[in-house]
């Protein structure tokens, strides 16, 4: 009944709202803000194809031709191929490691109650609110003692650790929802805990694994603070750190600057467009948990 009312209600309601002056104002506002978001991005894309001389003479104009010279310069001369490779290796390894260890822990915490399980859950979850950057100096010395300063592995371990709280939080909620009969039946057949986890449970939470993995990708790809402190040599730099030197060295070559910005940002935009649902689910996971 309520569905019919709703459909009928909106049928009468919506056309009237569209014609009204407020409806027009709403559309102008909504689509006007689209312009505010997209105009700077369009400017970057367009200007990446124009020589810097032209950009300086006339900041807003269409390119004479479609060419990717600036991308070649950014990729080669400005070392973006190296930064890109580093970012990719570090982020993929971190996400994989964090998701793997979190899935294991989340399974135990989500499926079983045992002494200290509540405390452990709170311990992991508290990480969602802790400002970990403030621990940078002890972290630096720790990595130094382990011989991991200025290595990709050091950054991977730190990043993976930062992914644990959110991943455990989401995954344990999913594991908890799976019906208990599944594992009981397998246990009757003599399957061990690891078989149940790997063969039965893990495949069932695959959507949650995807959410967790995709959602970690974005902040790690964008992170600037940890590699700035933990990586010294430029051949190990990730894109954001490489960006700082790039902006100093190429400050008079805007065409290449724009190309560098696009190279850094494009993977994220692609990930976001392909996995909008997962990322939005991740961003809004905190709602109502307060």
């Amino acid at each position, binding site marked *: 009944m309520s569905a019919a009312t709703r459909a009928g209600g909106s049928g009468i309601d919506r056309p009237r709202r569209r014609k009204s002056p407020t409806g027009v104002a709403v559309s102008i506002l909504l689509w006007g803000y689209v312009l505010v978001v997209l105009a700077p991005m369009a400017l970057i894309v367009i200007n990446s194809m124009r020589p810097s001389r032209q950009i300086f003479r006339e900041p807003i104009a269409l390119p004479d031709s479609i060419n990717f010279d600036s991308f070649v310069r950014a990729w080669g001369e400005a070392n973006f191929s190296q930064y890109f490779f580093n970012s990719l290796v570090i982020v993929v390894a971190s996400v994989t490691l964090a998701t793997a260890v979190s899935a294991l822990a989340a399974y135990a915490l989500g499926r079983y109650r045992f002494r200290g399980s*509540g405390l452990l859950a709170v311990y992991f979850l508290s990480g969602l609110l802790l400002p970990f950057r403030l621990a940078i100096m002890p972290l630096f010395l720790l990595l130094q003692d382990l011989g991991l300063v200025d290595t990709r592995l050091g950054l991977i371990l730190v990043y993976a650790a930062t992914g644990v709280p959110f991943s455990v939080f989401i995954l344990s909620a999913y594991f908890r929802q799976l019906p208990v009969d599944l594992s009981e039946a397998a246990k009757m057949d003599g399957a061990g805990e690891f078989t149940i986890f790997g063969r039965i449970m893990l495949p069932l939470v695959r959507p949650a694994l995807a959410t967790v993995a995709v959602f970690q990708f974005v902040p790690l790809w964008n992170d600037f603070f940890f590699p700035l402190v933990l990586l010294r040599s430029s051949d190990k730099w990730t894109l954001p750190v490489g960006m700082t030197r790039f902006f100093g060295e190429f400050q008079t070559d805007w065409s290449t600057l724009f190309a560098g910005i696009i190279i850094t940002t494009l993977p994220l935009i692609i990930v976001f467009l392909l996995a909008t649902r997962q990322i939005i689910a991740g961003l809004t996971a905190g709602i109502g948990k307060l």
Partner: protein
Amino acid sequence: MAEAPTPRSEARSASGSGVGRAAPPRRVLLVFIAPAFVLYTLFLIYPLVQALIFSLFEWKSTVRGDFVGLDNFTELFTRFPLDEQLPRAFIHNIVFYLVTMAVMVTLALLFAVLLQRARRGRGFLRVVYVLPYMISPLVVGYIWSLILNPTFGPVNSVLKELGLGELARPWLGDPSLAFPVVILVNAWYYLGFPMLLFAAGLAAIPEDYAEAAEVDGASTWQVFRHVTFPLLIPVFGTVAILTFIYSFNVFGLVWALSGVDGGPVGTTDVLGLLFYRTAFTGGVNAFGTASALAVVMFLAIFGVSMTARWWFGRLEEGLS
């Protein structure tokens, strides 16, 4: 990003269908939990606890010296230039937070409400609004530093084209303009996130409530004010707390727009930059003073978020 569930909700969901009765032996549990526990403890919790200990010692570069009690904390508030820079940066973070919140509870909420009613292109609009939030804050800062460049930037050139040349400014070079510009650039970057939170909150409100009120003759505004708004209080709490934590962590965006010193003449300096400078360019006892600063910032950020959580929790209970 997300808030930890309360122990209350934990217990409630544990009684649900999915939880097994007999836990496996402890050594099996250990294998499941140990990897995440060790990684998380060793690389995050242990350094965080150590920062507290660091702050009580004198440091000679990266070598720990004598126990000095609270001397590092006194130094924070008395040693030049920290005694000037710390209060200034702190005030900047507060202003940054308050203005950002004001923009978010008006614009982000407005867009969330309008988007829910939009008939066409809702999905597209939502993706576009969230798009800036996907870009690295550092890159956002660099993008806008080019757009706002006084000589070659398109903003000033458009103003000149329109005959409004006298409005053209060195946006990031003018001490009285730089900080408002930083806050605006940040709003461009950040808006999509609170908008998503508000949208999720709105979507969770059953339509029947508003319909019932409309049947009773309530106007659109009255429905919003007396039905929707009170039901959104928990979302306001989440937005307020997450924006607070975000505002006190802001770093890359300001770095790219204003440099590591928060120029011009420190008018855009924030705690994130000050902490970085103190730790890595702060002289012999840098680790000591910066650890003290870390402890103070930790207490401020964590203390305020926890208090706010408690307060919003009570507010919610009072309303329901």
